[in-house]
């Protein structure tokens, strides 16, 4: 065990769906404040891995701990969320019938009890926090529009905003740049970089330009067939023969 405590540690995870091994003896650890990018071809088990962390599915075998003491396998989705683990889904999932501001309000850090939902008052600093997030995600003007009426990219931003409102310790971000323009993608990258250090972040991404932008010498993990293929800075990873063979190589040949 290193001196810096791991915020997330997975050991020997296995998960199969009807015979298909989605996660295969996966070991993964994350230090506090890290910004980790996870790449891998389709079916590498990236999304399933996030499902395991957030309690959406349970592994067949293995252990999964958050901040050493919290056994994630014994908790359900909302209990894991309350530990401070937030997730942005691959396809933007926001409350389409609620306004943008209501979406943020539902995500704001704070008690989650029925009692509080009935009698809890919205404090002034919470209002300010929502204004601030709206500004950050550039949706101030659409604050009272229904989230369902937003463009795809805006929904992605709103979902990131919901993560910010939650003030999570660990952010799991699944393909944030999908469906965004180049400029939006760049700004998303900047936003994630600004959060690094304060929060621990895992980003799953396909877009290599984006990966280069946010990794900046940080660790990149390559998943393949539910297992960690290799880990290292983006340049090293891109030149790794195994990676080229299973992933980048195919891309290069195609190009």
């Amino acid at each position, binding site marked *: 065990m290193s001196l810096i405590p791991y915020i997330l540690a997975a050991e020997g995870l296995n998960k199969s769906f009807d015979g298909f091994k989605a996660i295969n003896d996966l070991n993964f650890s994350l230090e506090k404040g890290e910004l980790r990018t996870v790449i891998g071809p389709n079916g590498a088990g990236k999304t399933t891995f996030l499902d395991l962390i957030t309690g*959406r599915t349970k592994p067949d075998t293995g252990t999964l701990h958050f901040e050493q003491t919290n056994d994630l396998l014994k908790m359900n989705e*909302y209990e894991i*969320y309350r530990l401070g683990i937030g997730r942005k889904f691959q396809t933007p999932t926001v*409350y389409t019938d*609620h306004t943008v501001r209501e979406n943020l309000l539902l995500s704001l850090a704070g008690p989650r009890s029925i009692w509080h939902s009935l009698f809890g008052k919205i404090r002034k600093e919470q209002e300010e926090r929502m204004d601030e997030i709206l500004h950050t995600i550039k949706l101030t003007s659409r604050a009272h529009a229904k989230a369902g009426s937003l463009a795809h990219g805006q929904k992605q931003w709103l979902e990131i905003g919901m993560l910010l409102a939650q003030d999570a310790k660990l952010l799991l971000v699944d393909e944030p740049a999908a469906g965004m323009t180049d400029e939006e993608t760049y700004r998303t990258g900047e936003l994630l970089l600004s959060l690094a250090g304060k929060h621990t972040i895992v980003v799953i991404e396909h877009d290599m330009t984006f990966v280069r932008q946010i990794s900046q010498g940080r660790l990149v993990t390559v998943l393949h067939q539910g297992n960690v293929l290799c880990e290292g800075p983006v340049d090293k990873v891109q030149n790794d023969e195994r990676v080229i063979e299973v992933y980048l190589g195919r891309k290069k040949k195609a190009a």
Partner: protein
Amino acid sequence: MNTPLSGKMPTIALAAVALFLVVIMPALNAGGIVSDFTLNTWGKYLCYAMLGIAVDLLWGYTGLLCLAQALFFSLGGYMFGMHLMLMIGKLGQYKSDLPDFMVFLGLKELPGFWQPFYSFPFATLMVLAVPGLLAWVFGYLAFRSRIKGVYFSILTQALTYAAWLIFLSNDIITMGGNNGFTDFRTVLGADIRSPETRRILYIASAVALTLIFIGCKWLTTSRFGLIQRAIRDSENRVLFSGYSAANFKLFVFVISGMIAAVGGALYVPQVGIINPGEMATANSLEAVVWVAVGGRGTLIGPIIGAIGVNRLKSWATTEYPDYWLIILGATFVLVVLFMPKGIVGIPGQIRAIIERRKHRQTIREEDLAAANPSPEAE
């Protein structure tokens, strides 16, 4: 979240309606302008409206289509009915302290669980407690194992069916079997059939409906209401926002069951009978029709629907008795297909159609402009 203007106008209108129902109607009845029969009929409608709100709180707001709301309604009715049965005393056909059906069954003494129902406050408490407890136990099991959508509907239908079988059979529970309870005489010492008592029962129903309306308005506009609707639209996302969807659903389910039960408890003394037929799944679905017709996801919709459909029913069952079920069924099919937001949603639907027309018009104009660029541009 309402803007001040759109918030105040309806409030005033609703207050006027409430005043009319609670004060003016009974006053007109006392003055002989509104007949006893009409007032009694409206008393029934108001009880139906409570059932409608109970259905809507689950279906319209939380996305849970429950086919057991008529069961909770009937349970409330049965609980209060037990008290009314004991209040008959020796006035029954067999001149016995026991309710007639027990004498008929050959019972010698009152079953133990009937004993406390001599007390009016106890019976009132049970009106809320028994349906509430049933809702809690069933809801706990169903929501804990994440049974939702149509599975929940089917399971509530099974619950209703089981309860119906239990109440039909006098061997399992002594609740009057097929015939249920009837022939009530007094409530709180007053003759239950006198116009004065009926007027008071009507006022009680109107007041209960008003209070339930206000309570639900507050519930659905609080942050709780936001979560409720979030569960309806994307339950899994709610879990990933850290809310225990199961607990929230359970809370709504119990509240809704109790609201239905209050409606049932006020309904039974006004119609003078309660039997297992009242809890049938078909009755729950009929209440769903009221909500669909009136407009789900609103609180005024179920009230309009319950009163409107039942007025239609009173008319149709006398004018075209053979065709009432066909009218009801067809109404339902048409509302589901063409009026998903019900009567309340009609203005919105019309507005949407006009806007779409306008939108199409502007697009067409833009297309025309694009097809024929203005000379200046060239």
